[in-house]
């Protein structure tokens, strides 16, 4: 059996990006790939498919599209060559033609069995993607035998289908694209439409993906949305990548003669039964699109872009005939083929670690798999942010997860060198003291605090070692912080600005570095550095008002006056929110004060992947803890 530190399963763009991050962190690893690099793109997609995202958005850590058509959409051969090129560029240790047959947990990590032998590793990254098998509803078995059935994974081109009518089931990006080209081939298409997400390809002269990127929608984080379960289930946008940059929505299909029916609800006695909910499915998609375009328009106005953009417009509401058909006789001969474009599912038949929920999906927190230390997941819908399934999402996700993985390896090494897990209450704390106080006594509360750190960060923070003297006090403080964040609807970015301004004003290097790094990942290195330096160069007016206020509260709360509060009001904050902001800063001051007074030095792990500009901006406070070996 071979050994390594990390086994990455899957050499698509996500697995390769992870390989690059692991290499940068000097973590020994192997990437196992059943076929060749970018296998799914090569073998499981239709001929005419192009990426739904424009070329400029093909950004991987270390490689960004550099061709002469940034607004175009890659064909499949182009995608394959882009990913091939990336694999060579990052010198990924890919073992091709290696099919994983089992992943099993052992006492000290995992064993990955393959048809080319087994690997042992303390950490495993699952980068096999969200689309391994085509999902087909159970009632497909009731389709009459003389009607052919093809899934979107088997479909390549219209000529592969018999002449005659085709029922395309599903109206996400896949369904509408297949419906369009099949209908144009002379095979009349009936399209069964359930819940869907409508979008124009271009809006006010810009690609819809450019808009979603600019307004921050794609960066929305998984821990900031109301209902993560719901957003993870959303179907893909109804868009297509074509050289003409055409919009392919339901209206475009019906204008060409495609017939619409409701969601396919069942098949009985050879008859397809369609839901009567078509009108509402279309109305919901139209309303949701209207809200997206409203948000875009507001953003454009706020940023003073109206003059240089095409004027706002609204697409026609989706047209639905007065009484759409509710049934279709499949045995009648009008329909020769059913194309199932009803989504994909991941295949975890080889995963023998008990981490699946009742729907067969992996339970995880932003890609850190629940109850399976050292096991990580990549490339799933909304894994860590809205763009997690895009090529463009792999960079940020693998950066954060590889950081977590590195921390986990370090923590596991500490645990081993102490010869015991940190589990027995009353036992002497095996984590060394982190400030001027001695090590706190272990308790269930301290254990929970440490476990939270390890599951969230990959290591126990020095602040937690200090607060371990009263872990409940830290719980209460965190609860209170969480309360004001919710009450004031403070976004991650706003919190980052408040904390870095407050901590740098106090001379607290710990929170300045920890949050400077987070803010840099969220808003850019220079953005974070400018807040830490106090020049606020990259902040907009509303963000500047936050930063200025946080510094005032931290430095000299007795010298604020009504005009300072007015400035916040002018920046768009109402009085209730200003109160939340102030309480938030005051609580962070309390937290920093305790850490600084008791000598907590910034965790050495913070140096890992720390942007230089952020580190340079923190020329104050206690220095980083000695690196690499906290004991």
């Amino acid at each position: 059996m071979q050994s390594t530190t990390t086994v990455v399963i899957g050499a698509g763009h996500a697995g390769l990006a992870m390989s690059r991050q692991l290499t940068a962190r000097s973590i020994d690893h192997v990437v196992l790939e059943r076929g060749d690099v970018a296998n799914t793109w090569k073998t499981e997609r239709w001929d005419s498919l192009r990426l739904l995202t424009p070329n400029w958005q093909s950004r991987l850590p270390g490689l960004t599209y550099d061709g002469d058509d940034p607004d175009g959409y890659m064909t499949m051969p182009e995608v394959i060559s882009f990913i091939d090129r990336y694999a060579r560029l990052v010198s990924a240790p890919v073992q091709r033609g290696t099919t994983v047959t089992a992943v099993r947990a052992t006492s000290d990590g995992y064993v990955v069995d393959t048809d080319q032998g087994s690997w042992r590793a303390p950490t495993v990254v699952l980068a096999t993607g969200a689309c391994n098998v085509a999902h087909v509803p159970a009632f497909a078995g009731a389709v009459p035998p003389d009607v052919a059935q093809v899934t979107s994974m088997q479909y390549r081109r219209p000529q592969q289908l018999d002449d005659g009518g085709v029922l395309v089931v599903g109206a996400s990006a896949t369904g509408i694209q297949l419906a369009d080209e099949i209908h144009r081939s002379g095979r009349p298409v009936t399209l069964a439409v359930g819940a869907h997400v409508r979008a124009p390809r271009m809006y006010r002269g810009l690609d819809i993906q450019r808009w979603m990127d600019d307004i921050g929608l794609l960066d929305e984080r998984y821990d900031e949305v109301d209902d993560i379960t719901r957003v993870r289930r959303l179907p893909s946008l109804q868009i297509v990548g074509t050289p003409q940059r055409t919009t392919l929505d339901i209206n475009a299909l019906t204008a060409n003669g495609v017939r619409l029916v409701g969601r396919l609800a069942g098949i009985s006695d050879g008859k397809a039964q369609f839901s009567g909910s078509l009108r509402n499915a279309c109305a919901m998609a139209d309303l949701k699109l209207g809200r997206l375009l409203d948000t875009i328009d507001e953003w454009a106005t706020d940023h003073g872009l109206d003059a240089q953009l095409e004027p706002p417009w609204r697409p026609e509401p989706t047209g639905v005939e007065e009484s759409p058909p509710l049934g279709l006789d499949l045995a009648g001969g009008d329909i020769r083929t059913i194309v199932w474009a009803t989504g994909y599912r991941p295949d975890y038949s080889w995963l023998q670690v008990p981490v699946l929920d009742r729907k067969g999906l992996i339970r995880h927190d932003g890609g850190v798999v629940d109850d399976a230390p050292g096991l990580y997941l990549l490339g799933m819908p909304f894994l860590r942010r809205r763009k997690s399934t895009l090529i463009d999402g792999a960079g940020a996700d693998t950066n954060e997860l590889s950081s977590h993985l590195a921390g986990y390896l370090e923590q596991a090494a500490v645990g081993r060198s102490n010869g015991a897990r940190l589990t027995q209450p009353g036992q002497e704390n095996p984590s060394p003291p982190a400030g001027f106080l001695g090590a706190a006594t272990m308790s269930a509360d301290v254990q929970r605090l440490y476990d939270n750190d390890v599951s969230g960060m990959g290591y126990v923070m020095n602040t937690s070692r200090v607060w371990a003297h009263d872990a409940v006090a830290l719980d209460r403080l965190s609860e209170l912080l969480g309360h004001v964040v919710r009450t004031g609807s403070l976004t991650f970015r706003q919190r980052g600005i408040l904390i870095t301004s407050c901590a740098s004003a106090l001379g607290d290097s710990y929170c300045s570095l920890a949050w400077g790094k987070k803010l840099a990942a969220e808003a850019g290195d220079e953005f974070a550095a400018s807040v830490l330096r106090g020049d606020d160069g990259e902040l907009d007016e509303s963000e500047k008002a936050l930063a200025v206020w946080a510094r005032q509260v931290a430095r000299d709360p007795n010298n604020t006056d009504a005009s300072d509060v007015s400035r916040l009001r002018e920046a768009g904050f109402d009085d209730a929110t200003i109160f939340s902001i102030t309480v938030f800063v005051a609580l962070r001051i309390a937290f920093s004060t305790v850490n600084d007074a008791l000598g907590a030095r910034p965790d050495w792990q913070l140096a890992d992947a720390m942007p230089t500009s952020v580190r340079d901006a923190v020329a104050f406070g206690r220095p980083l803890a000695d690196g690499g070996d906290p004991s």
Partner: protein
Amino acid sequence: MTTTDTPVDNGVNVAALLEAREALTAAPEAAQFQWRANCVWEHGTHSRSTIERFFGLGGEQQHKTTFSFDADHPEIFASEDHGATPVEIVLVGLASCLTAGVAAVAQNREIQLRSVSATLEGDMDIQGILGIDSDVRNGFSGIKVTYDIDADASADEIKAIVAQSQKRSAVYDIITNPTNVTVEVR
């Protein structure tokens, strides 16, 4: 980031509904419900149905009182008109399900409702039930629901509430999608 002077109150305890959703996610077996009705023939086309017990949350449940519904046909069908026709009762079910949904969704979205009313029209060609034309179905050829809603919200926000109510409605689903029905005689 807005302040609301008076809290939105449509009389729906959304917090309790969201808690129930969380609890039932963790214990899906408790989400298995059975709804029941009993029906007794009175005379002619007149029958009386009663609703009393149901099963859910892992046990037998009971309404606060027994509810009773008379159904009959109007006099133009040579009946005595002791109650609404069964198809009208279907419209009642759809209307009350959608309207409850409107209130709940509005509450969840913190939108104060002032008035909500709905008009329902179910079109039917009775050649079907009379067996005159086998190409005509027995049931409605279509149902039209028209809402008049006065609320602290934009027209699109109100439309979105009504759309979401349809998406989550049991009766809307029952009417728009096929259901296997088994009728037996003891």
